Every structure is written in structure tokens, then in C-alpha cells.
């Protein structure tokens, strides 16, 4: 499968967009003490932003960033949202509430607890009625989302936005799925080889790599270690560096997703 990355969105401590990501590459990635500020996507009204919670704001923010960079019609692209753990703030709220004496749940928190809530808020914010999905692959979630997005772009012949996110969690969920940094990122991909953009060649291979590829810079590797979506930073780093070495992510019990970037083509 050949697709082209034309837009990138990003949000983490010290990384609030593609420009900042590129700047941070000159200093080995964001510092460990970089402060995290919650995103406030302009596409969601302030009152709705407060109701929405972090995962939704994160996903909507990075998806809009990537679309703005790609210059695609936000109302027309298909989308794939992905997360290893979903909105663990809501999971924690609901499970604590249901374990207590008063089990009445907030209706807003309940309807935001569906994993595709990010897709729902995005589609409303962009007035987008195109196909949209949420995929989970636990630790393989980024590769699952990239596979889904690339297959959708080619089979449906549509631009596809991919947003992957996981948020920092606390005990007790932290003990089973430790996430110590919040990270959201998005790609807009077009079917086939297009210009400008980075062409990607994707193929499945028999054989599961032991681990996803890690970024080379220490600051990015630290972030990638702290968030299950973090191995996506390895791809962003390769794109920024114009590297073309093959990268392989685990995507099934005995399957890997091979991704090879080509040289970035720039607008004539």
C-alpha cells in the first residue's frame, strides 16, 4: 500500500504542533520537565470543551492541526481514532461511582464514555458525515490505526485523518497500564503518491517484531516509553529527518506492519 502523509498534528508536554516538534529535534526532543497544558481546540465551543474532557479535546485538536497543515476539506475526509486505553478519566469516574452507594452516573460522562466519543465530537466540530471509526489495539494501537487508515484511504479513495491518543493515568489503572505522559498525534494521509508530502509504503509481514521502533532522540524516546501511542513519534522523527529506513510495528500475534517513508516531495 502506498499513501502520502500531507498533514501532521501533535500535542504533548513541550510539543504543541509540528513546528515545535521540528524545533525540538535540534535539542534531542522536549525536556523531561516540560509542562503539559491541556489543549483548547478552537473548533469546540468553550462550554462544550469543559464537558468534553481531555481525550476529546486532545483528539479534536490534533486532527484539526493535521487537516490545517494538509489543507484538506475537513468536512469530507474519513477518519480513524485510536487509543490503547481510551478515556481513563471517565473509566475511573464510572467504576468508582458504580462501586459506591450512589450509582447514578452523569449522563454526559456516560455518553462520552463510548470510545468513539472523539470521533463524534470531531465530526460535529467539522460537520463531517464521512466514514469514521475508533480502533483499539492495546499496545499495538498506533499500527492498527495506521493499517486501518491506509486501507481506508486506498480502498475508499479518500483522504483519511488518523488521530491516536492516550492520557496519563493514576492508580489503580496505572498499575495495569502505566501511562505517565499524555500524548495525542494525528496524520492526514492521501491514497497513492502525492505531492507535496511524504510517501509511505506499507506492507504486512509474517513475524511479529518484539517491540515497536523507538525514536532515536532521548527526549522523544522518554515520551514514547511513557505512552502506548508514543512509537508513532518514531515515524514523525523519521519524516522530519527525511529518513527512509524501514520501520516495523507489531500488529497481530505473528504479524508486523512494515512502513518505509520516501523522500519528502515539496510543492513545485
Amino acid at each position, binding site marked *: 500500500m502506498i499513501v502520502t502523509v500531507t498533514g501532521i498534528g501533535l500535542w504533548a508536554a513541550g510539543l504543541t504542533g509540528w513546528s515545535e516538534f521540528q524545533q525540538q529535534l535540534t535539542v534531542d526532543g522536549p525536556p523531561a520537565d516540560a509542562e503539559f497544558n491541556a489543549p483548547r481546540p478552537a473548533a469546540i465551543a468553550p462550554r462544550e470543551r469543559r464537558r468534553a474532557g481531555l481525550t476529546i479535546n486532545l483528539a479534536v485538536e490534533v486532527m484539526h492541526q493535521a487537516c490545517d497543515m494538509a489543507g484538506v476539506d475537513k468536512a469530507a475526509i474519513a477518519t480513524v481514532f485510536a487509543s490503547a486505553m481510551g478515556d481513563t478519566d471517565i473509566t475511573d469516574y464510572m467504576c468508582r461511582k458504580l462501586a459506591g452507594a450512589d450509582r447514578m452516573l452523569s449522563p454526559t460522562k456516560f455518553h462520552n464514555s463510548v470510545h468513539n466519543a472523539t470521533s463524534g465530537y470531531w465530526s460535529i466540530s467539522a460537520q463531517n458525515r464521512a466514514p469514521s471509526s475508533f480502533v483499539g489495539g492495546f499496545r499495538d494501537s498506533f499500527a492498527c490505526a495506521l493499517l486501518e487508515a491506509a*486501507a481506508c484511504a486506498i480502498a475508499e479513495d479518500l483522504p483519511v485523518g488518523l488521530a491516536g491518543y492516550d492520557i496519563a493515568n493514576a*492508580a489503580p489503572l496505572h498499575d495495569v497500564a502505566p501511562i505517565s505522559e499524555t500524548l495525542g498525534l494525528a496524520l492526514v494521509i492521501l491514497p497513492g503518491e502525492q505531492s507535496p508530502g511524504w510517501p509511505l509504503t506499507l506492507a*504486512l509481514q509474517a513475524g511479529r517484531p518484539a517491540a515497536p521502533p523507538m525514536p532515536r532522540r532521548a527526549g522523544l524516546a522518554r515520551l514514547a516509553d511513557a505512552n502506548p501511542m508514543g512509537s508513532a513519534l518514531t515515524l514523525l522523527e523519521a519524516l522530519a529527518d527525511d529518513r527512509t529506513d524501514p520501520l516495523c510495528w507489531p500488529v*497481530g*500475534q*505473528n504479524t508486523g506492519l512494515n512502513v518505509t517513508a520516501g523522500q519528502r516531495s515539496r510543492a513545485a
Partner: protein
Amino acid sequence: MTPIPVTAYTLTSALGSGLDAVDAALQDGCGGLSPQPWQDCDVPTWLGRVDIPDDVQTEPAWACRNNRLALLGLNQDGFADHVSTAIDRYGAHRVGVVIGTSTSSIERTEAAYRELDDSGRFAPEFRQPDTHNPHSPGAFVARALGAAGPALTVSAACASSAKVFATAARWLELNLVDAVVVGGVDSLCLSVIYGFHSLQLVAPSPCRPFDRDREGISLGEAAGFALLDRADPGNAEAALLGYGESCDAHHMSSAHPEGLGARLAMESAVAASGLSFADLDYVNLHGTGTRGNDATEGQVCAQLLAAHTVASATKGWTGHTLGAAGIVEAVLCLHALTSGVVPGTLNTRDPQADFNLTLETAARRPRRALSNSFGFGGNNCALVFGLS
């Protein structure tokens, strides 16, 4: 699109385990809803519960009701054997897995929170990373079957296990794999009962889709699976002919008032199949039994469906199985095509429908069927199946 053969399928729901249980229930006109409460839950409602035998158990790392339900479902109708045959033919890494769910294993996470230790941590038996995450059913099914190709879990609320067919169809079209196990698994838990109760959508009586006096949904649980195999040499009786996916872009928990998203999904599915609406013999409606959803879906069906196309809503039989509703109703469509028997709309007595809604189960020998699934977040999916 090129039709994709469905070489095996199975369903475990409140009607019982396997397709024989579906046949028996339809023949007797006996649905699966029961007023028996869930644990100590104080919400008055009827539920479509599956009796999972005690000896259906997973390894401890995967232990939860949802994965036990998946395991029970995989072992009905020889489904796991059909998958083994495909693995032998193509190699394990050429068989993918796409499972839909909304609950995943949240019932287990709820239990873990009820039994936190003194320091607020999970007790040892609940420290199960592979269980407490949205991908648990997809990973579990891949592991249980030995399918080693790409595996992911779709979680798009009540459209989840309809959308699995779209993902699988793309994988097959692009030759990424040779066969795909699709399915859905959702299990009853406090989150969904109290959650839908908070939205005032839970009916105190058995749900009555499209009834003038409908009061809301009856929740249920189910595990259903289908095997899609592009290279099937012609043994399959039925095939996936088309799929359509859309968003409402309107509201998180109520459908677009004119059903724009629903209409788009249905039209896309029928267009992809190369058919027209007049070619459909049967439509399995989303038909949840809430006032708003049924009104919206009814309005769209009145505009799109031909007078000779029979439609029914089957959640009165099974309950609304949420993330499994797509596969439950896909299997009911496939089974209607191969058995010739179209299920009626159980519990509904005073229908409010400007299209051909049927209340009675009857032998109608449909050849083309459409299944609707519409979810929270405005996610919609429609599927078209036909006899081979």
C-alpha cells in the same frame, strides 16, 4: 464491490447458544428477555442475558465475563473449526481478526474497583493488563483461534460490529489477508445499565421497537462471529454485497432529526452492492425501542424502502446488545437468507411505521437483506447481504 463469501457464522445471545437456538426461539415465538435483575442492580428492566456455563473459563490473564462469552460463542456451530481450516489453507498470519465491542471487559474493571485493596490498588486477581483495555475481545479471539494476522477491535458504540465487515472487506480487497474473522462481543455490566438509565432510555418492560407506546431499550449481551473468505470456491451460501459507513455530525446521544447519517449509510451500502432499494427483500432495522431513534429510522425507511420490502426489528428477541448488535443482526440477516425464515418484531403490538414493518415471524425466502446499525457519537453502518 466484489461480493465477499461468508463461509461460516454463528450467534450466541439471550436466545441461546448457536443457530439451533435461534431457530427454536423463532419457531416458538419465544424471546430471550427476562425481568431477573443484574447482580444487585436496582434499575427495573428486562435483560437479554446469556447463561454462560461454569466450565467455560479462560486463562486467568483474560478472565472476565466478556471473554468467557466470546469463548462460548466461538465454540458454537463448528465456527472455530471453520477458522482452523482457513488457517491450515492460508497460514495463520494470513487470517485477520476484527472484533466490535462497546463494553469490552469493563464489567471486570467494575469488579476490580469494588474490591480495591487498602492502598486503593487492584487485588492480585484483577491485575490483568490484557483484560482491562478496549482491545481485549479482539486480542482474545485472535489468541483463542490462533489467527495470527492483523487484529484490531472496533469500538464505535452500537455500530461497532457492523463496521467490522467494512474493515475486513477493505483488507480482503487489498489482499492484505486471505480471510478475516469478524464479530462482536458485548456483555452486561453496571456501566451500561446505569448509563442508559441516566439518559432515561431504559424500558421498564420488554422493549417494543416501533410500537406507538414504546418506552425505551432492553439491554442484552451476545457474541457473534462470521468468517469472510474471498477465495471460497463456492461453498458459501451467502455473501457480503455492500457496506456503508457515515456520521451524523449532529449530537453525541441523539440521532440527526432527519436521519441524514442513517440515510447516507443505507444509500452507500446499497450503492456499493450494485443493487437498488427495490431489490431488497428484508431489512433488519436498528430498532432500539427508544422514541427518538425509531422515529428517525422510520422516517428514513419510509422514504427509501419499497412497499414489498419486509422490515423487522429484532431487539425484542435478543435485547440491545450494543457493541454486538451489528453482528447479532448481521447473523440474523444471514440466517434469514439461508433458512428462508424472517424474524418478526417481537413484543410490538401497535406499530407506528410508514413502511412494511412485519410483526410476525414467517417463511419468506428473502434473497437480499440489509442490516442497519446506528450508534452513539453519530456513527452509522449499514450492510447488504445476499444469497450466493
